[in-house]
C-alpha cells in the first residue's frame, strides 16, 4: 500500500450498503472526517450489482462451506489493560442456499471469458493463463473491479442442462456436443456485430421467425453488459430516496429509467394493468362500466382522508374485504389489491390499503406513466453515488479492508477505536457498522427473517409488445394461503443491466423455505425451463419465454431489529441493516437519517452542496447563470420536461406548491 492510512477520524463506517453510504455522505458533508471501509472488493455489500463473471465469483464464494482458518491474534497486543475487544465477523453469513442453473446450450465453453475481465483478485486461486502470470509479477492490480474476474467461467456441479433429468451432465461432458451444435443455430464465433445485424433483420422481417437462441458462451462473453443486482428494488418517484438524491444533489451521479408497465397475473395470464387515466380509457381489457368504476374508486383514494364516512365502518377489515364492499368487479379488485396498492391480501387492513393506493397514485406521472424509477446500471449504483459524495467532501475509501475488532474502553463503555487487518489501530468517536459484520456472539438474541431471491436471464419478455424495451413490475399473488406474494421486476437491455436480446428478471419474496422452493413454482408458471426444445405452440402465440440461466439464493433480512437485541454494543456504535424485502428504499433512508440525527442532532442531513463544486467556469470565464447549480437551499428541482401531460396522471397540479 503506497499510502498510509491516517489513524484519527471522527466517524468510521464499516460496510458500503445503502444506509451506511448515506450516513457516510451525510457525515462527510457536515464536516466530519470519515473513514469508510468494506471487507469486500466491491461496493454495496448485499446492495451490490455484478457483471456476469462477477456474479459467478460471488456465487462460488457463497457456495464454499469452509470457514476461514483462524488468523493470528497479534492484534490483541494492541488492546490495553483498560480496554476490551468486540470481535467482528470474518466471513459474511447472510447468503444461503445459493444455487445456479444454466438452461442455455453450452457450446464448449472451456476458455470463454468475459471480454475485458481480469484475473485480478490476488487472493483468488491463481489462474493459469500466461496473461495472469505476467500480471501477478506486478503485484496487485488496482482492483476497483466488481468482477472477481476468474479467467475461466466454470460451471458449478449444481448446474443442470435443460429440464430433463436425463440430460443432467457435467460441463466437460463432450458427448452432447454434436447434439448441442445441432440445437444451437448461433455459433460462439459469431461477432457481436454480426449478431447485431441479424437482430435488426429479424425484428423488421417476419415476426414468425424464431428468435436467435442465446448460448451460455454468449452470455459469458457479453458478461460485462450485465449488472445483476443482489436486491431488486425500485424508487418511488416521490419516495424518500428520490427526495434525498435531489436534495443532496447526489442525483447528478446517476440516471434513471421510468418503469414502463405494471403487470398482473390473473387466470394464468399476464396482463397489463391500466393505472393512469389515459391507460384506463385506452384499456381494451376493461368494459366501459369497469373503467368508470375504477376511475371513481381511484379518484376517491387520492383524497380518501376527506371522506372518512366511505371507509369508517371498514377500518378493521382487511383491504381485500373492503374492496369487495365497493362497486368493483373481481378483476378490478385484483388490479387494485395486487398491482396498485401492492399489499398483502391476508394481512393489510383498509387504511393500509388506501394509504398504499394513494401513495401509488401520487407517484404517477411525475416522470412517466408508472410511479417507479430504476437506476441505469442497476440499484447497486446508488450506494456508490453516496460514497462518491462522501469522498468529494474528504471521506477516505478502502475496499478489501477488514476490521478485526472494535476497541471498547472498559470504564466509559464507549468504543474508542478499531483495529484493522493490518493491525493498525484507528481512533474515532462514532462507529457505524452494518449488521453482517457483527459476530454471532453479538447477535445471539437477534432473530432474522429471510428474503428469497431469484435472478433469471431470459430470452423474451413475459408480455410481448411492439417495443422490446419495457421495464415491468409484476406481483404474483400467493398460490396458496399463507404463502407470500412474489414480486417480479423484468429489466430490458436499455437499463444497462443485461445484454441485447435478453431480459433480466428479478424475483423477490419473503422466505418460507429455501429460495428455490419458494420461487421455482412461480418461475415455472411464467417461463419455460427447457431451453433446448423447440417452442411448441408457434401459432398459438402463448409461448412462454425461455430461461437461459438462473440463480436462487436466500438473503438475510436484518431490517426492523431492535437495537437492544444486540449484545453489549457500546452506545456510540450504530448498526445499519442490510436490505429489507420492501419494494421501495424508504427503510434504508429513514434509518440513515435517524442514525445520523442521533450522532449529530444539530446538523442538517445531507443539505444541498455549496460552492465550490458547483462553480462552473464557462469558456469566457463568467460565472454560471444555470439555475440548477444555484446555491439556494430552496431547490427547484422539478424537471419540467419529464412531467408528463395531463391525461397521463391523476395529479399534476400540486407539483409546484409544496410547503
Amino acid at each position, binding site marked *: 500500500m503506497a499510502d498510509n492510512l491516517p489513524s484519527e477520524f471522527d466517524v468510521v463506517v464499516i460496510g458500503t450498503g445503502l444506509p451506511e453510504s448515506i450516513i457516510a455522505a451525510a457525515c462527510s458533508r457536515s464536516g466530519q472526517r470519515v473513514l469508510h471501509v468494506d471487507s469486500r472488493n466491491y461496493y454495496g455489500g448485499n446492495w451490490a450489482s455484478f457483471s456476469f463473471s462477477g456474479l459467478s465469483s460471488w456465487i462460488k464464494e457463497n457456495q464454499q462451506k469452509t470457514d476461514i482458518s483462524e488468523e493470528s491474534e497479534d492484534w490483541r497486543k494492541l488492546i490495553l489493560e483498560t480496554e476490551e475487544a468486540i470481535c467482528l465477523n470474518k466471513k459474511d453469513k447472510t447468503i444461503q442456499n445459493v444455487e445456479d442453473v444454466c438452461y442455455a446450450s453450452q457450446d464448449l465453453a472451456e476458455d470463454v471469458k468475459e471480454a475485458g475481465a481480469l484475473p485480478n483478485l490476488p487472493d483468488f486461486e491463481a489462474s493459469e493463463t500466461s496473461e495472469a502470470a505476467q500480471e501477478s509479477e506486478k503485484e496487485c492490480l*488496482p482492483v*476497483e473491479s466488481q468482477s472477481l474476474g476468474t479467467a475461466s467461467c466454470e460451471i458449478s456441479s449444481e448446474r443442470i442442462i435443460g429440464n430433463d433429468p436425463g440430460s443432467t451432465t457435467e460441463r466437460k461432458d463432450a458427448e452432447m456436443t454434436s447434439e448441442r451444435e445441432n440445437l444451437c443455430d448461433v455459433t460462439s464465433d459469431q461477432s457481436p456485430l454480426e449478431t447485431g445485424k441479424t437482430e435488426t433483420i429479424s425484428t423488421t422481417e417476419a415476426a414468425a421467425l424464431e428468435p436467435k437462441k442465446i448460448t451460455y458462451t454468449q452470455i459469458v462473453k457479453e458478461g*460485462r453488459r450485465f449488472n445483476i443486482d443482489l436486491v431488486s428494488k425500485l424508487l418511488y418517484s416521490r419516495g424518500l430516496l428520490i427526495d434525498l438524491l435531489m436534495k443532496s444533489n447526489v442525483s447528478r451521479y446517476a440516471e434513471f429509467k421510468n418503469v414502463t408497465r405494471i403487470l398482473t397475473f390473473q387466470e394464468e395470464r399476464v396482463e397489463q394493468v391500466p393505472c393512469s387515466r389515459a391507460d384506463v380509457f385506452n384499456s381494451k381489457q376493461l368494459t366501459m362500466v369497469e373503467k368508470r368504476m375504477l376511475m371513481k374508486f381511484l379518484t376517491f383514494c387520492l383524497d380518501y382522508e376527506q371522506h372518512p364516512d366511505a371507509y369508517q365502518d371498514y377500518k378493521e377489515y382487511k383491504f381485500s374485504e373492503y374492496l369487495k364492499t365497493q362497486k368493483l368487479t373481481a378483476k378490478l379488485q385484483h388490479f387494485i389489491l395486487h398491482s396498485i396498492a401492492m399489499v398483502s391480501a391476508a394481512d393489510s387492513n383498509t387504511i393500509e390499503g388506501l394509504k398504499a393506493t394513494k401513495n401509488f397514485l401520487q407517484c404517477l406521472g411525475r416522470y412517466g406513466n408508472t410511479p417507479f424509477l430504476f437506476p*441505469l446500471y442497476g440499484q447497486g449504483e446508488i450506494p456508490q453515488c453516496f460514497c*462518491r459524495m462522501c469522498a468529494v467532501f474528504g471521506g477516505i475509501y478502502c*475496499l478489501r479492508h477488514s476490521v478485526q475488532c472494535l476497541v471498547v474502553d472498559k470504564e466509559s463503555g464507549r468504543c474508542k477505536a478499531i483495529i484493522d487487518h493490518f493491525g493498525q489501530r484507528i481512533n474515532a468517536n462514532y462507529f457505524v457498522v452494518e449488521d453482517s459484520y457483527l459476530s454471532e456472539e453479538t447477535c445471539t438474541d437477534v432473530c432474522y427473517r429471510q428474503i428469497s431471491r431469484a435472478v433469471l436471464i431470459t430470452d423474451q419478455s413475459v408480455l410481448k409488445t411492439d417495443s422490446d424495451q419495457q421495464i415491468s413490475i409484476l406481483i404474483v399473488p400467493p398460490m396458496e394461503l399463507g404463502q407470500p406474494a412474489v414480486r417480479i421486476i423484468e429489466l430490458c437491455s436499455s437499463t444497462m443491466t443485461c445484454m441485447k436480446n435478453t431480459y433480466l428478471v428479478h424475483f423477490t419474496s419473503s422466505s418460507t423455505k429455501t429460495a428455490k422452493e419458494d420461487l421455482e413454482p412461480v418461475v415455472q408458471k411464467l417461463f419455460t425451463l427447457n431451453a433446448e426444445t423447440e417452442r411448441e405452440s408457434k401459432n398459438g402465440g402463448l409461448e412462454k419465454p425461455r430461461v437461459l440461466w438462473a440463480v436462487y439464493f436466500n438473503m438475510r433480512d436484518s431490517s426492523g431489529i431492535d437495537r437492544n437485541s444486540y449484545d453489549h454494543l457500546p452506545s456510540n456504535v450504530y448498526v445499519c441493516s442490510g436490505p429489507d424485502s420492501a419494494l421501495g428504499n424508504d427503510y434504508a433512508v429513514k434509518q440513515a437519517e435517524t442514525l445520523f440525527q442521533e450522532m449529530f442532532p444539530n446538523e442538517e442531513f445531507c443539505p444541498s452542496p455549496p460552492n465550490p463544486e458547483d462553480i*462552473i467556469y*464557462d469558456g469566457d470565464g463568467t460565472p454560471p447563470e444555470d439555475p440548477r447549480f444555484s446555491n439556494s437551499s430552496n431547490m427547484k428541482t422539478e424537471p419540467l420536461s419529464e412531467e408528463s401531460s395531463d391525461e397521463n396522471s391523476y395529479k399534476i397540479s400540486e407539483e409546484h406548491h409544496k410547503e
Partner: protein
Amino acid sequence: MMAIRELKVCLLGDTGVGKSSIVCRFVQDHFDHNISPTIGASFMTKTVPCGNELHKFLIWDTAGQERFHSLAPMYYRGSAAAVIVYDITKQDSFHTLKKWVKELKEHGPENIVMAIAGNKCDLSDLREVTMKDAKEYAESIGAIVVETSAKNAINIEELFQGISQQIPPLNPHENSNNGAIRLGKQTTQMSRPCC
C-alpha cells in the same frame, strides 16, 4: 445555434501525478502549488467548440477514491473519454498507467477515447520516462498522448482538443441519452442536433 454535446471525461492515474491540476488549468486557467487532495470538487465543466458542435466537457475527478484502490464502477459509467495521467519524473507512475488502462478496459464503456498525459514536463531535468516509451505504449493501445505541464500551461488545451477530435460525430439517428431521466435537471437537451 450550435448543438451542445455533453461529454463525460474521467480522470485516472496515481495519487499526486497532477490529475486535478490539469483540470484546474484547463477549466480555470489556474495553478495552485498546494492543491489539497481533491476536496469538494465533484466535476468541473468547460465548453469548447469543435467543428460545428460545442463540446461541453464534464470532467469527473476521482475524489481521492483511487488512493486506496477503491474507485467505484459508477465512476466510469457513460464516459466518452478518459484522461490517464502519469508523472514524467516517476517511472512508477508510468508503470501503474498500464494498470489503469486495464482497469478502464474492464469497467469503462467500449468505445471510450483514451488520452494519456505525461504531466510535469516542466521538470524535464528529473525525467524518468521518455517520450518514445510513452508514444509506443499509447500507439499499442490506440490512445492519444501528449506531455503536459499544468504548472506552465503546456499542452493542456491541446490535450482536450485532441480528445474533441477523437470523439466520433453524433449519429443523428441515435438518441444518445436513450430516454434516460436525470433527476433535478431543468431540461434535457442532450446532444440534440439542431435542425
